[in-house]
């Protein structure tokens, strides 16, 4: 076993990541339902979601079931009533006696690392507040590897680079692969200085405009700009409007450019992009399944590596 719990992408080496991505590739036909394999038969996964995230919960459920395992769910509503009565520590002590692994989503940062201290079974972090969401980063990397390439990658990240944990984790992981990174955002939502300095020591990173780099890049990763980040509606509309992508924006792009987005989107990617060969965001979401299969297999299979 390479890791017992999956708490943060920072806990993984490049080698660990490559291993998971290869395992995910192996499970892809199983995820697609084209091949049947049940290495996790007889295993039980508990989904503990202390805040709603139907997409992530379903993805884990599909991954577990496709591998022959079973799933019990605690919904956000149930969880909130549990949370009123007892501590997370107690909930984990109890559930870790029922299940063979726990997927945890919790509104507080550090909840998953804390849960791991109280668990007899592996904890997989499915998002802890504004903290970590390692399976998202791994599925992002898998999408890049699958639909583009992690070698000599030129990637632009656009939108909210200040608050988006998805962006921060992905950027850190990309430095392990020596990517060339372009940052596109309104000045008020720029990448935190500290993180910028940290990655600048490792890879080439530049602040840019989309028009300047659109012909160069292999991947355009778009994130949502949230209304709440702006003092007033007018300011928001003005700023958000200039960080949108439509089919016309992509006319000058490389043939094999891929557009990614962690979803759900609002209107930062126009539906006109959906019909282009560049659109990979729905595929990206689906790739969460083989990636989560790989992780579940790694922490649960008796004869895993």
């Amino acid at each position, binding site marked *: 076993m390479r890791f017992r719990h999956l708490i*943060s992408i920072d806990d993984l080496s490049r080698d660990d990541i490559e291993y998971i991505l290869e395992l995910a590739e192996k499970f892809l036909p199983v995820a697609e339902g084209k091949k049947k394999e049940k290495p996790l038969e007889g295993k039980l996964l508990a989904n503990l979601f202390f805040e709603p995230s139907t997409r992530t919960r379903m993805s884990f459920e599909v991954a577990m079931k496709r591998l022959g395992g079973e799933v019990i769910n605690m919904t956000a509503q149930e969880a909130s009533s549990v949370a009123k009565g007892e*501590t*997370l*520590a107690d909930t984990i002590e109890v559930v870790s006696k029922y299940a063979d692994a726990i997927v945890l989503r*919790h*509104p*507080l*940062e*550090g*909840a998953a*690392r*804390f849960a791991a201290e109280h668990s007899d079974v592996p904890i997989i972090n499915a998002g*802890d*507040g*504004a*903290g*970590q969401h390692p399976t998202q980063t791994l599925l992002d990397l898998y999408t890049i590897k699958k639909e583009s390439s992690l070698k000599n990658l030129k990637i632009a990240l656009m939108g909210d680079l200040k608050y988006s944990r998805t962006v921060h984790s992905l950027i850190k992981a990309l430095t392990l692969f020596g990517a060339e990174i372009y940052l596109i955002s309104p000045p008020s939502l720029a990448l935190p200085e*500290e993180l910028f300095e940290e990655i600048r020591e490792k890879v080439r990173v530049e602040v840019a405009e989309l028009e300047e780099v659109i012909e160069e890049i292999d991947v355009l990763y778009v994130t949502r700009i949230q209304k709440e980040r702006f003092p007033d509606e007018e300011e928001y509309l003005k700023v958000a409007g200039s960080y949108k992508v439509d089919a016309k924006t992509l006319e000058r792009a490389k043939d094999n450019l891929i557009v990614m987005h962690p979803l759900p989107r609002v209107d930062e990617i126009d539906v006109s992009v959906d019909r282009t060969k560049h659109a990979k965001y729905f595929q990206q979401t689906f790739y969460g399944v083989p990636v989560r299969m790989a992780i579940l297999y790694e922490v649960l299979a008796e004869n895993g590596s």
Partner: protein
Amino acid sequence: MESKNKEKSAERLAVSKIRCGTVIDHINAGKALLVLRILGIKPGSSERVLIAMNVPSKKMGKKDIVKVEGKYIGEEELNRIALISPNATINLIEDYRVSEKRRVELPSVVEGILTCPNRNCITNSREPIKSRFHIVKKGEEVRAVCHYCGRRICELDRYVV
């Protein structure tokens, strides 16, 4: 040499000698009370404590000194002082003599000493949990990183429990 003697006498004026116990010298000026807090010495504690603040010092300009009579404080506890005063020195006193002298060493991890400024951090919830920080030195600056949420803090003295 003369100025050193002057300094010594100023020190003597500031705090009388103790018979046995622990003297913490070269504390950054103004941090003496924080040192007591780190050592868990509160109003109502039974230790006899002598404090000198803003004592002239050749090396530091001004410094604070804390003397705790009749008590030998553990190494781990004393090393926490490095979080707020990396140049502090420890003198163990036996029968009015210094029996051991050393510098505080920066611990790599501290538990329960600092609070995480991140309101959404699990350490600030009602869970049974102690704060835990990894200590890193960047040049002259001492930083702490929350084990749970990853929040980095620079001015550590602001976050001592």
